[in-house]
C-alpha cells in the first residue's frame, strides 16, 4: 500500500492563499533565470539548445515532442504543452475565491482559440489543422476545442457553443448576421474581443476581495495596450468616428473611448506619442520612439509596451505577496519565459543575429 504523502492531506483552501502561494513560489524557483536564458541564446545549434532544455523542467515535454523531429515546431509544441499543464496545476491549487479571477485572465486564451477555430471553419480547414494551432489552457478543455474544431462551419461553431451554454456564444450570435451579410470574420472576432474585455470589467466590478484591485489594474493595462496597438494600425484608415469607436475595448485604465478615437484620428504615430504624454505609458513610448524612428517598425513600440506590462504584472508579486498577485505574476512570468525560449530557439534556427535575439527578450 502506498504511504500517504503530505499533498494527499485534504486542506481547506477556499480562502487561504498560503498553500497556493507556497506551491507557486516553488514553481517560480524552477523558472529559467537570466543566466540560463543567456546560455540558451549562446548555444550554437538547435540541437545544443534542445540538449540544454532537456536539463530543465521542460525535459518531459521536450522528450515527448521530439518524436515529431528535432525542429523548432517540436520545441514550440513542447513549450505549449508545458504551459497548458502548468496552468492546469495553478487552477487546481488555487483557493476557490481566486479561481474566477485567474480564469478571467486566462480566458484571453479561450478567445484566441475560438478565433482560431472560427478562422479554420471559415476557410474550411480540417479539424487536425485547426487543432494544431490551438492553445488549450483556459476554461475550454482540449476535448471541447476538438469538438468545436470539427464543427465544419462558423454557424455550427456558434450553435455548439450555444448548446453548451457557453457565454461566448452571445457576442458571436449577435455578430453572425453581419458575418453572413459580408462574409468577413473581423466583426465576429471584434465582437468576441469586446465581449471578453467588458465581461472581465463587469466581473471585477462585482467582486470585493483583495485581489480585485490588482487584477483590475493588470487587465486595465492589458486593455490600454491593446487599444494603443489598435490605434497604431488605424492611423490613416479613413474610418468614421463611429466606426473607430467600434474598435475601442472597454476596461482600460487610461484610454477612454473619446481619447481612443482622437488617437486613431492622429496624423501619424508621433501624434499618438504626443497624446500619450500624460499617461503612465509616456516614458516607455518615448524611450522606444528613437528606435521606432530609426527602424520605422511598429513592433518596436509594441514590444516596449509588452515589456512594460510584464514588469508591471511581475511587480504585483510584491504588491500582493499574500494574495492572488503572486499567482497572476507567475502566469505572466511563465508566459514570458516561454516567449523568451521561443525567441532563442527560433532565432538560432534561422541564424538571427544574437544582438537582435537579445533585443526581443524580456528579461526580468
Amino acid at each position, binding site marked *: 500500500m502506498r504511504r500517504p504523502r503530505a499533498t494527499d492531506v485534504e486542506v481547506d483552501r477556499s480562502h487561504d492563499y498560503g498553500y497556493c502561494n507556497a506551491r507557486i513560489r516553488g514553481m517560480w524557483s524552477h523558472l529559467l533565470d537570466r543566466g540560463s536564458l543567456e546560455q540558451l541564446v549562446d548555444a550554437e545549434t538547435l540541437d545544443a539548445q534542445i540538449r540544454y532544455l532537456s536539463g530543465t523542467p521542460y525535459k518531459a515535454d521536450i522528450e515527448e515532442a521530439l518524436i515529431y523531429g528535432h525542429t523548432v515546431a517540436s520545441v514550440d509544441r513542447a513549450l505549449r504543452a508545458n504551459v497548458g499543464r502548468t496552468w492546469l496545476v495553478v487552477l487546481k491549487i488555487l483557493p476557490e475565491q481566486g479561481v474566477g479571477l485567474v480564469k478571467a485572465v486566462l480566458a484571453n486564451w479561450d478567445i*484566441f482559440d475560438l*478565433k482560431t477555430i472560427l478562422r*479554420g471553419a471559415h476557410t474550411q480547414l480540417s479539424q487536425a489543422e485547426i487543432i494544431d494551432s490551438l492553445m488549450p489552457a483556459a476554461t475550454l478543455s482540449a476535448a471541447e476545442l476538438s469538438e468545436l474544431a470539427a464543427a465544419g462551419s462558423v454557424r455550427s461553431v456558434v450553435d455548439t457553443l450555444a448548446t453548451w451554454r457557453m457565454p461566448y456564444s452571445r457576442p458571436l450570435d449577435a455578430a453572425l448576421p453581419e458575418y453572413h451579410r459580408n462574409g468577413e470574420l*473581423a466583426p465576429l472576432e*471584434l465582437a468576441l474581443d469586446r465581449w471578453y474585455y467588458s465581461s472581465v470589467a463587469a466581473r471585477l466590478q462585482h467582486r470585493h476581495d483583495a485581489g480585485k484591485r490588482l487584477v483590475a489594474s493588470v487587465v486595465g493595462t492589458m486593455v490600454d495596450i491593446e487599444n494603443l496597438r489598435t490605434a*497604431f494600425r*488605424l492611423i490613416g484608415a479613413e474610418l468614421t468616428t463611429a466606426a473607430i469607436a467600434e474598435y475601442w475595448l472597454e476596461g482600460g485604465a487610461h484610454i477612454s473611448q473619446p481619447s481612443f478615437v482622437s488617437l486613431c484620428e492622429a496624423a501619424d504615430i508621433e501624434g499618438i506619442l504626443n497624446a500619450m504624454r500624460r499617461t503612465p505609458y509616456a516614458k516607455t513610448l518615448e524611450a522606444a520612439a528613437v528606435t521606432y524612428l530609426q527602424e520605422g517598425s*511598429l513592433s518596436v513600440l509594441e514590444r516596449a509596451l509588452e515589456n512594460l506590462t510584464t514588469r508591471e504584472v511581475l511587480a504585483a508579486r510584491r504588491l500582493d505577496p499574500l494574495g492572488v498577485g503572486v499567482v497572476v505574476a507567475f502566469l505572466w512570468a511563465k508566459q514570458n519565459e516561454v516567449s523568451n525560449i521561443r*525567441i532563442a530557439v527560433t532565432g538560432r534556427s534561422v541564424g538571427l543575429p544574437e544582438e537582435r535575439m537579445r533585443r526581443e527578450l524580456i528579461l526580468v
Partner: protein
Amino acid sequence: MEEVRPTRSELLERRTQMQLARQGMDLLKRKRDALLVEFMDTVDETMRLARELESNTAEAQYALTIARAVDGLVAVHSAAMASRGAITVEVSGIKIMGVPVPVLTKADSTIRGPLARGYSVVGISSRVDHTAERFEVMLEGVVEYAGRETRLRRVGEEIQKTSRRVNALEQVTLPTLSEQVNYIRQTLDERAREDLFRLKKVKKKIERKKSARN
C-alpha cells in the same frame, strides 16, 4: 549527297530554292536581331524585378521569423488561416515578332490594408500584421516577375530556335544546294561538250563521205 537529276529544270529549281533559302536566312537573321534587342531590354527589367523579389522575400522571411519567435507558431498559423485568399490574375497574350507571350495582369493589388486581411486588428500583434504585409508585397512582385520571366523565356527560346534555323540554312542547306547546282551545271556542261564533239564527228563523217562520192 541527295540523288540529283542533272537536268536544266532541276538546275532552275535548285537555283530558286537557293534564292529562297538566302531570303529566308536574311529574314531569320533580322528576326533574331530584333528578338535580341527585345531580350536585352527584358533581361534588364527581369534582373531588376528578380533583385527586388529577392530582397522582398528576405524581408518577409525575416518578419516571419520575428513573428514566429515572439508571438509563437500558433499565433502566426491562426492569423494565416484568416488571411487566406485568392488572387485573380488575368492572362492575355501579345506577339513579339510572331512569338506569343502571355501578359499577366492582376485584377486587384495583393497589398491589403490592416482592416482587409480577414482578421480583426484587435488582438493581432503588429509583428504578425507586418509579416502579412511583407508577404503581400512579395506576392505582388511574384506576379509581376512571373510575367516578365515567361516573356524572357519565350523570347530566349525563340532566339535559340531562330539561331538554329539560321545555322541550318547557312551551314547545311545553302552549301548543299550550291554543291548540287555546281554538280548539275558541270554535268550539263559536260553533256554540251560531248554533244558538240559528237556533232563535229558526224559533220566530219558526212564531209568525208561527200568527198569520197565526188
